[in-house]
């Protein structure tokens, strides 16, 4: 056995293996564990919000703590739960779907996950180190500059570190999909999951740098005494709003496009039909990605950019409904006349269509700029974005978790418990958020920590909170399901759903660390399905059995990320108590060590980079003999 599989003894060896791994399948598991942890954390914060709002004049949370909880709920769910969980499924599937042995940059893949994990931990340490950020997940500069204490600093630095990881992963997926496709895997034969990952990757590459700049401006203002948002010195807080939304709007497509990809796979698998209108689906995906960059100011209709700007952004926003509509109809036509199997993933997919359309329709309502003056900052907005993010993205994550679980762990989640989770979550979701549309139209503003009795909000808020309880129950059942499945550890074999269409299902389970013993030859869309129908159910090899090259494990990505984590503490406390600092931190105690912590942290990262550059990391070869042994073993297992 080669070095990658040989050391499997003891817990520490396993932990070390995961700390140093460059295998996309193991990195997928790291993303799943860390993203799942933050999802539960964000869910607990959501429950705290709904408990506080269940009854009028509640004092369960103080006003200040409520602000911290809503800020952390939004930030955690978007940056630390939804996106990493999507990365988990991208990592688990995309290299397999295109017939590759790994991603283009395995080292960077590892760096991406560790930057995300350290950034996430840093952000959440704020709870224990003087208070969490409290300026909302959008952290508008006029609020965030005034926010006392270090809360917003944790937000800015934590997101900067984890955002760097996201950017790196985006570049990695784009490159992987362009250069690593197996012979015959043309662009127009790529599964929709791969296509949406490619477009989401491009969106990440172009959308994250504006966030990086915005966060740097905030970091420099709050920690190093600059004046970008300090109005007395000529600063302008609207710059933050623009930069944030130039990132923020593409961000929602970065989330929803891979979700569309997961659903597209599930629809065609469990309707047992080729995806209807494949080329239109690809076209619509690219078009949504393109339009995604031209609509950011629809978040800023009430800022006062003027009627011309508002009109242009309103029209561009409405235009996005067209490609999205194309997708919705294509999914419906895929199901139409199909031989449908109601598995757990399929239930989520079917529930997604009406739920997401409802969110889309309220989106079009808000695109009408004059009407948006009424909806703005009300619960109508909260209802809208939860309909698209939960009804779209979270449904896709739960569907994907059940659908891809066997691919990642070679076991199956219980269908029975899965369906219980689905019904609890589905009913709870609509109960929580449908009523919030009406709350908004009745005048309840968002981001308020309580409301008075006798305004007609009581019953609606109670219903909403009860619905949130149902969703929490659903997640608890899911956790129980996972624990039971892991404990039972009942292995399943190749193509566990029985109707796999794409390359990843052609592989033996668990997938060998080199994925493909021989790189497969792709003969059309739904490559595995074609071989099932026209061949002998095995992929044809595109190469003869031979030695092949694999990348080495490395601890450097972990150390590099750790360096930035350390440096973040130095930056965070740098302005503390300095006379040039903003009022928010000027009264705090001086930390003379802050500068040195910053320097040491950056030095750790920098030395890691130099080490990486100066070493020749040539990887190793998997020998023909080892692959042959594995193949024989699989044959024996199959019998």
């Amino acid at each position, binding site marked *: 056995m080669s070095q990658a599989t040989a050391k499997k003894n003891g817990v520490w060896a396993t932990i070390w293996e995961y700390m140093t791994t460059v295998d996309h399948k193991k990195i997928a598991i790291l993303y799943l564990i860390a993203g799942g942890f933050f999802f539960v954390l964000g869910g607990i914060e959501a429950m705290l919000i709904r408990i506080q709002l269940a009854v009028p004049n509640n004092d369960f949370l103080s006003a200040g703590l409520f602000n911290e909880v809503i800020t952390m709920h939004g930030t955690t769910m978007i940056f630390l739960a939804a996106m990493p969980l999507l990365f988990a499924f991208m990592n688990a599937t995309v290299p397999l779907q295109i017939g590759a042995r790994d991603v*283009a*940059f395995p080292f960077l893949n590892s760096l991406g996950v560790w930057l995300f994990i350290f950034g996430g931990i840093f952000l959440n340490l704020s709870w224990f180190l003087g208070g969490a950020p409290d300026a909302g997940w959008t952290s508008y500069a006029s609020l965030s500059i005034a926010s006392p204490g270090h809360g917003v600093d944790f937000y800015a630095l934590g997101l900067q570190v984890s955002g760097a990881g996201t*950017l790196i992963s985006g*570049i*990695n997926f*784009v*490159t992987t999909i*362009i*250069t*690593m496709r197996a012979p015959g895997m043309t662009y127009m034969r790529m599964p929709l999951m791969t296509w949406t990952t490619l477009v989401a990757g491009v969106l990440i*590459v*172009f*959308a*994250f*740098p*504006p966030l*990086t*700049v*915005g966060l*740097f*401006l905030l970091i*420099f*203002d709050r920690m*190093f*005494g*600059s*004046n*970008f948002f*300090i109005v*007395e*010195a*000529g*600063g*302008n807080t609207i*710059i933050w709003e*623009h*930069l944030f939304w*130039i990132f923020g709007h593409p961000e929602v497509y970065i989330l929803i496009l891979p979700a569309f990809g997961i659903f597209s796979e599930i629809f065609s698998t469990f309707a047992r039909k080729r995806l209807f209108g494949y080329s239109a689906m690809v076209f619509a995906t690219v078009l949504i990605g393109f339009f995604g960059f031209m609509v950011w100011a629809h978040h800023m209709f009430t800022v006062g950019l003027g009627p011309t700007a508002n009109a242009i952004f309103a029209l561009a926003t409405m235009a996005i409904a067209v490609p999205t509509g194309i997708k919705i109809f294509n999914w419906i036509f895929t199901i139409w006349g199909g031989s449908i199997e109601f598995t757990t993933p399929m239930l989520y997919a079917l529930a997604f269509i009406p739920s997401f359309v409802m969110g889309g329709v309220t989106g079009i309502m808000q695109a009408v700029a004059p009407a948006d003056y009424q909806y703005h900052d009300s619960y109508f907005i909260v209802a809208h974005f939860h309909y698209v993010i939960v009804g779209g993205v979270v449904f896709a994550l739960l569907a994907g978790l059940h659908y891809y679980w066997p691919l990642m762990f070679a076991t199956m989640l219980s269908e029975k418990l899965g369906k219980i989770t689905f019904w609890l979550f589905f009913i709870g979701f609509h109960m929580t958020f449908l009523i919030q549309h009406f709350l908004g139209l009745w005048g309840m503003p968002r981001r308020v920590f309580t409301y008075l009795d006798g305004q007609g909000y009581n019953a609606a808020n109670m219903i909403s909170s009860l619905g949130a309880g149902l969703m929490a129950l659903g997640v608890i059942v899911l956790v129980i399901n996972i624990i039971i499945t892991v404990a039972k550890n009942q292995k399943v074999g190749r193509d566990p759903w029985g109707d796999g269409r794409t390359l990843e299902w052609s592989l033996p389970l668990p997938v060998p660390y080199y994925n493909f013993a021989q790189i497969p030859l792709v003969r059309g869309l739904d490559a595995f399905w074609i071989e099932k129908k026209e061949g002998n159910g095995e992929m044809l090899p595109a190469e003869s059995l031979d030695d092949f*090259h694999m990348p080495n494990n490395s601890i450097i990505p972990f150390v590099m990320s750790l360096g930035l984590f350390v440096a973040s503490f130095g930056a965070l406390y740098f302005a503390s108590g300095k006379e*040039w600092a903003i009022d928010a931190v000027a009264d705090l105690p001086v930390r003379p060590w802050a500068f040195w912590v910053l320097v040491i942290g950056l030095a750790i990262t920098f030395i890691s980079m*130099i080490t990486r*550059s*100066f070493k*020749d990391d*040539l*990887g*190793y*070869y998997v020998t023909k003999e080892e692959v042959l042994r594995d193949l024989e073993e699989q044959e024996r297992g199959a019998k």
Partner: protein
Amino acid sequence: MAEMKYNVPNEQWPEHPETATLEGKNKFVGFWTFLGGETVLFASLFATYLALKDSVPSSDHMLAADLFHLELAFVMTMLLLTSSLTSVYAVYHMRNNNFSKMQLWLAITVLLGAGFLALEIYEFYEYVHLGHTFRSSAFGSAFYILIGTHGFHVIIGLIWITGLIIRNATRGLSVYTAAKVNTAALYWHFIDVVWVFIFTIVYLLGVI
């Protein structure tokens, strides 16, 4: 065994050694993608600068027209443009498998880049003496973050290319090292293109 594949005999030296291996191809595509992101990064900084370039707390603060000297900016531009040209020579010799000439032109590139950086530091030093600092006004913040981010890229580029010269000194040229040199050259060109925009938008527009 693995190393064998990277060292190519002279007569088999490919026309494009930087993309002759899959790793090389990946680096090429990945780095262009990264430069796409860098473009948006600098676009955001330019937008911030344009929004804040006339924003000072009071009329006794200096603005662009009071500060900039086109002579200095012109010399800096020439140094950086020339260094881009010399990095092209380095890549040219890399493609011809001429290791020592490649190293020489890379060294000249570093020297020219260092000259640019020295002038930039001198410029910043002068401005700080005149009271135009990172903390003095929104204009100051926007100016230093735009030029400073570019200058930081120059520093990274200098360390990168110097590092390559040192690490490759004992290794010579292979399709493995060629990909590294080519990526650094791509980066260096990008820095140069950004400076052209800085010269136009910040300096030229600042004095007219």
